[in-house]
């Protein structure tokens, strides 16, 4: 090997090593160049692994690869097979098990246990006749119709991207990647990974008093009512445990975004001593070590916090060069009625990474996914499917002992003149009651049943 070859080989492997380290967030980078070169021989086979065909069964029909095992991906995988049994479906998710974010606020206040929220991807795949693959998707190539994962590549006939959201920390002034990671771990928002949920529950249970900050992001964030519901559940726990605490609910919006009257009434009537609601709190920075949150006009010291920043579409979309430059969420440019990329009827984007402004939440994703599965099956079988609106249904718990909740059901309609979607056929119930509370749990049971078992 010549000196020149050695150098280029070393450069390539260093670049590869950086990619791998970047993927595994929290893994320390090699401390020095000599340490990096020592690890080169181990890196090479790791890189080769990425370029092998993944160990999944050979396709026995048109293959649909679904990226993301959330509410959208799970529902799609099931109904794709239902609408076209000839489809061979693979669902890919980086998590080993499913933990439900809907109803997790009730879990924070001990209204259900972790078993209620936890389900197995294996059960879903076994019961519905598709394959599950636990892997992180690294990217995809639309010319060769190939998805690359850390466990090798998979070829597709149709690709469904349902990778969900990521936190957009720069929008609250936290730009540096190290600071972002630290903020994510110290004061997680609780809307992306299950470790966040566990950490949040421990924070609440162990809180000994003082100021507890909760934030509501601006823009189209996941689960519109959840930050307000969470404030109620956290307050309910403090009240039950007789903790002397003040919850500062810093809302980046000018007012409560949904079930406004109901939440206002709950804040006043049930948690007047606990919740201080502060609208138009545009967060501009977080001093993580100093436990201080800065807004446009104020600063707040806190003892503990759950910081839910604005969100954006999974970076998988942007890295593939598909982010629409006009989209603040960095969503892909898709056909708003058929969900595929504007120039590619083989690639669909659904769930919370969709470009349409539908409410980001479990029920919406589930109802939408049934329709999109029908569209994809229709494409394969050669028949048209008429557009129909997704349905949004959302329960919000406001009180515990007994659990009481409000609810909303709505659809969407497309306004030809403005070219925008708006709410349609909305039924809002801002009166909270025990029937609503129990219905929220029954709703979740029905959804888990549909996605995992029957």
């Amino acid at each position, binding site marked *: 090997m010549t000196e020149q070859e050695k150098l280029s080989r070393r450069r390539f492997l260093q670049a590869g090593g950086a990619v791998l380290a970047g993927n595994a967030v929290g893994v320390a980078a090699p401390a020095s160049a000599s340490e990096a070169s020592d690890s080169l021989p181990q890196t090479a086979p790791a890189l080769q692994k990425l370029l092998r065909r993944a160990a999944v069964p050979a396709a026995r029909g048109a293959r649909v690869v679904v990226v993301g095992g959330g509410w959208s991906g799970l529902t799609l995988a099931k109904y794709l097979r*239902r*609408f076209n049994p000839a489809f061979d479906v693979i669902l890919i998710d980086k998590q080993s098990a499913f933990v439900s974010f809907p109803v997790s606020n009730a879990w924070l206040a001990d209204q259900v246990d972790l078993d209620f929220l936890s389900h197995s991807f294996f059960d879903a795949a076994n019961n519905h006749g598709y394959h599950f693959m636990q892997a992180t998707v690294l990217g995809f190539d639309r010319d060769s119709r190939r998805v690359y994962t850390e466990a090798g590549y998979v070829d597709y006939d149709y690709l469904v991207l349902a990778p969900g959201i990521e936190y957009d920390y720069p929008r609250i002034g936290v730009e540096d990647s190290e600071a972002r990671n630290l903020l994510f771990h110290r004061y997680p928002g609780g809307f992306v990974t299950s470790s966040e949920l566990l950490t949040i529950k421990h924070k609440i249970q162990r809180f000994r008093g003082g100021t507890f900050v909760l934030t509501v992001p601006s823009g189209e964030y996941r689960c519109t009512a959840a930050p307000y519901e969470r404030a109620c559940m956290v307050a309910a726990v403090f009240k039950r445990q007789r903790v002397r605490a003040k919850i500062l609910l810093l809302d980046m919006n000018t007012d409560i975004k949904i079930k406004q009257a109901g939440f206002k009434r709950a804040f006043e009537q049930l948690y007047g001593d606990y919740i201080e609601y502060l609208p138009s709190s545009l967060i501009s920075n977080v001093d993580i070590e100093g436990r201080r949150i800065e807004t446009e006009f104020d600063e707040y010291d806190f003892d503990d916090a759950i910081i839910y920043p604005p969100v954006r579409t999974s970076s998988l979309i942007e890295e593939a060069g598909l982010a629409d430059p006009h989209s603040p969420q960095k969503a892909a440019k898709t056909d708003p009625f058929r969900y595929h990329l504007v120039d590619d009827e083989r690639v669909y984007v659904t769930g919370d990474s969709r470009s349409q402004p539908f409410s980001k939440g479990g*029920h919406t994703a*589930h*109802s939408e996914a*049934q329709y999109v599965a*029908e569209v994809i099956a229709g494409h394969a079988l050669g028949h048209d499917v008429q557009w129909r609106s997704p*349905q949004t*249904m959302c329960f919000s718990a406001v009180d515990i002992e007994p659990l009481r909740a409000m609810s909303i*059901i709505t*659809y969407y309609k497309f306004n030809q003149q403005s070219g925008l979607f708006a709410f349609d*056929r909305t*039924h809002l*119930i801002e009166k909270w009651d025990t*029937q609503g509370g*129990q*219905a*929220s*749990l*029954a*709703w979740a049971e*029905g*959804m888990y*049943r*549909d996605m995992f078992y*029957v």
Partner: protein
Amino acid sequence: MKITCYSFITAIVFSLSTAATAVEPIRVVLEFVPDIDNGRRTFDICARCHLPEAWGNNDGTYPQLAGQHVNVLMKQLLDIRSGRRVIPSMQPFVQQRTIGGYQNISDVVAYISTLPMNPAHGRGPWPPESAEYREGGELYEQYCASCHGAAGEGNNELSYPRLQGQHYSYMSRQARLVRNNMRRVKPSMAALLAALSAEDFDKVLNYISYLPLPQADLAPSAAWRNPDFQ
């Protein structure tokens, strides 16, 4: 009024002489004396979508319940409760933990049966003078009338739904669900949906949506509001 509640229990009988297994369904019929007052209170949760008049929406988002046979309402409630008929947005409200037991379900069904029907329900796109309407009528005579009745009145004893007065868009949506393997119905009904083209089926549903209703079953006007919920 008698409200019956069916539950199907499957008994498995093993024969010792052969390897064959005989499975016979046994129907258990439970009877309840409904309490209309409790039914009215229970209906509060239903009214949130089906509206206090139980008329649903003319756009078919929610069906009209008023005027439907009690046995049909009961069967659908129990099917949705058990998940046999999948409706994610209704399923939560008809569980033991929300609506309560069979007595409550019987009460609410009995209450719904006291409500007058919408005199201006959602109708199909082809009016009675159109060719599509006539074709729909012929198909109805041929395929539907023997079970659902010449006037679409249905049959309570046999749990055949009353079709008169149901919103066209609702029926059309249900037909699509059956075709897509999303709703299970009686084999004879499923066979009919498979035999007729989607267009022909829409014509039948259109015809049904114009079937006249007995004056006595109707509310005085579409502006009538249920006084129990004023």
